[in-house]
């Protein structure tokens, strides 16, 4: 018996030693990116998650794109464009000689196909959807082919965010020939014009893309990029430390410090157009009174939230418009942490220990660390006299409850948004007409006619300087009215091995890998 025991132990040892170690090495000139989840689809019109967008911008181009390091628009597949005086007609001159990865030609017909597929229910390939974000282009009335390299968009009203929406992944251009060939399975057989061409998708293992040598904007140096979904954050960190991936996005705040102190790794950070807030119910209950809403904003110690809970992966928010839109010249400062002032405001409002129901979610897109944040906010509010009861919901359930409006259910609810234009968030969440019964996201029923008017004006103006002033005004008024508890603007991060060069995060949250070397 003893002998048997020894033999088994020895065999196990042999098995371990016999295998060559250091299997976790990424191949040379191939960049392996650790993603937070498997993509849903590689059809840019069919997806909504930043996680998927990070892959897509490397496979496809749009007519326009965000200029490096900014949220400003520059030419991509369109060489230039003109906007009619009434702001309702956009004419794009297309780049010539560009082909899709499948060999078919990029031209005006292809552009028309892309938008008709998304927007027209009678289009023969509309059933390859659904296209959840197609409403980004709901202002588009018609797309007309003028000639092979000229295409015209007719809008039903002037719509300032149009170009920015075109630069967003929903505006990426797919190969009509590939859609025709693969139909509903196009999302698994993508074909675009981007710097990398799709090579392989192994379910829940990897998405691989190879260098497009014929890329119109210069071929990338990398031979290939591989996106690996690693859902569990701890495993993702372990893979980064074991050398199984070259880049990891969305590093949990708690691990950032140890990565920073590691000489073999580089931490990269970039503020983006993200805002984390708590919707306050302005229709009923204590928060119907502006003084009480302001009291809440004074009561919560946002500095502690961003520095301790989020470990410096966010900055304090001042209003609904994130500072990443740096062309909006706002001088509004965040509410300082001032519990005395909060108590004073509560006294002024004549309320004592107001009872608050606070909806908290367990996690969700852009929600950072919602449970801990919720608890910290609760503690700060209690400290000045609020009586806060937290109700926690799973993300999907949470969205259902919050999006139909807080009336009769709750006084405040956590929420976060990421956008590409300063119009989107206030337009969808702070307008009088954006109430839940009208199909909007104004779940706290905030209403200020002046804000409504400013937003309407800003979205139809095509003069950037004028828009900048209008949004600055919106920021100022909303800050004062305090329909939300303004909390944080996320600073996205990533960590790379020291060998990775030329890697940058973009304010758009997109991940361009064309100029990366390794």
């Amino acid at each position, binding site marked *: 018996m003893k002998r048997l025991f020894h033999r088994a132990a020895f065999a196990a040892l042999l098995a371990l030693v016999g*295998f060559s170690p250091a299997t976790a090495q990424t*191949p040379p000139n191939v960049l392996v990116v650790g993603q937070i989840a498997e993509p*849903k689809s590689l059809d840019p019109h069919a997806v909504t998650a930043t996680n998927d967008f990070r892959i897509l911008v490397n496979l496809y181009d749009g007519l326009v794109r965000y200029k490096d390091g900014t949220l400003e628009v520059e030419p991509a597949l369109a060489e230039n464009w003109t906007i009619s005086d009434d702001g309702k007609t956009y004419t794009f001159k297309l780049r010539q000689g560009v082909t899709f990865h499948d060999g078919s030609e990029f031209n005006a017909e292809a552009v028309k196909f892309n938008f008709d597929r998304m927007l027209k229910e009678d289009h023969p390939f509309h059933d390859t959807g659904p296209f959840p974000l197609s409403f980004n282009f709901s202002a588009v009335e018609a797309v007309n082919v003028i000639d092979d390299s000229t295409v015209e968009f007719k809008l039903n009203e002037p719509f300032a965010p149009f170009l920015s929406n075109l630069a967003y992944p929903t505006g990426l251009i797919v190969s009509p020939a590939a859609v025709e060939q693969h139909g509903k399975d196009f999302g698994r057989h993508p074909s675009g014009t981007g710097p990398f061409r799709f090579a392989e998708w192994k379910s829940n293992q990897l998405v691989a893309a190879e260098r497009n040598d014929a890329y119109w904007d210069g071929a990338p140096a990398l031979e290939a990029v591989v996106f690996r979904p690693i*859902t*569990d954050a701890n495993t993702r960190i*372990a893979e980064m430390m074991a050398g199984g991936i070259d880049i990891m996005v969305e590093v949990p705040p708690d691990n950032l410090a140890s990565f920073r102190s590691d000489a073999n790794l580089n931490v990269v950070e970039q503020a983006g157009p993200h805002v984390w807030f708590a919707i306050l119910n302005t229709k009923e209950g204590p928060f119907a009174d502006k003084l009480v809403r302001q009291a809440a904003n004074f009561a919560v110690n946002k500095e502690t939230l961003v520095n301790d809970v989020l470990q410096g992966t966010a900055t304090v928010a001042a209003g609904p418009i994130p500072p990443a839109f740096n062309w909006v010249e706002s001088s509004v400062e965040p509410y300082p942490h001032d519990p005395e002032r909060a108590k004073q405001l509560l006294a002024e409002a004549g309320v004592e220990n107001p009872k608050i129901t606070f909806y908290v979610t367990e996690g969700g*897109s852009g929600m950072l660390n919602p449970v801990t944040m919720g608890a910290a906010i609760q503690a700060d509010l209690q400290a000045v006299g609020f009586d806060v009861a937290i109700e926690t919901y799973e993300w*999907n359930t949470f969205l259902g409850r919050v999006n139909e409006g807080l009336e009769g259910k709750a006084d405040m609810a956590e929420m976060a948004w990421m956008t590409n234009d300063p119009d989107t968030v206030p337009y969808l969440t702070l307008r009088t007409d954006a109430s839940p019964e009208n199909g*909007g996201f104004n779940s706290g029923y905030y209403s200020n006619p002046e804000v409504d008017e400013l937003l309407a004006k800003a979205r139809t103006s095509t003069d950037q300087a004028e828009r900048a002033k209008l949004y600055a005004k919106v920021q100022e008024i909303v800050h004062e009215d305090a329909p939300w508890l303004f909390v944080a603007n996320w600073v996205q991060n990533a960590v790379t091995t020291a060998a990775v060069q030329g890697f940058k995060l973009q304010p758009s949250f997109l991940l361009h890998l064309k100029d990366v070397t390794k």
Partner: protein
Amino acid sequence: MPAYAAKRLLSVFPVLFGLSVIVFLVMSMIPGDPATAILGAYATPENVERINRDLGLDKPLVQQYVIWIGNVLQGDFGRSFALNRPVLDEVLERFQATLVLAGVSLVLCAVIGLLAGVVSAVRQFGWADKVITFVVLAGISMPSFWLGLILILLFAVKWRLLPASGMYAIYGGGDFKDLLLHLILPATTLAVVAAGVIARLTRAAMLEVLRQDFVRTARAKGLPERQVIYRHAFRAAVVSVIPVIGIQAGFVLGGAVYIETVFQWPGIGAMLVNAISTRDILLVQGGVLVVAASYVLFNLAADMLQTMLDPRIRS
């Protein structure tokens, strides 16, 4: 026996049918819906309605179910809402991965469990018994996802002996050795708890058998001790352990849900977790049916094996 097997096999179908009704009801009862999951923060009533129309979710529940079951009978399991891909493709691809992982860990836990059980029974109260009992207790009490992470930290991060996650190397892998390397950590993690249960039961069964008359007779005949234990005692004891191994198959399949997430194993457990959180009803249906069917089959196989080994049951 073939008749018995056929009867047991046929009984799988009502079980699966009942299960599909329950899954359908539960999935439609829990709050949230696929359209909200797809749209996320953009889930306005208008957008939700548009997506529901595109997905055919605007029809009454009973009609949805009838359409689904009708299609299933024709071999069409529908398309996943979230992945926009045929359910069957996804489920089969992912189930293969789970089968490899669960199969290997089942063999592993059976071998380790039986061996440890026999050793500790034969050396009752000896040092081997004490060590094994301690290890078994520790194995059963440890949360498997925690053990998985610890193994990753030691073998992948600290010593760099084994890959931390995944099923194959990104490049240049794909062969059997590559698979084996990737299997060691998850399969071990998954096997530990089940092995503990099997070890304890084997020990108890062996102790009981060793006290019986036929063992004494065998020893009295002068047979070598090893032959007494493995030829005679073990064969009698293993009969009562085999059904438990069958039940552990279910446990291993269930445990795969955590382990696959921790090790990013591309199996059906991780797929189901995702499908439930995105309310991907058809994918959940497909996944649950495959898992349930395989559980029933595992147990059937265990029963058959027991019948074969134990003449008393055969008659």
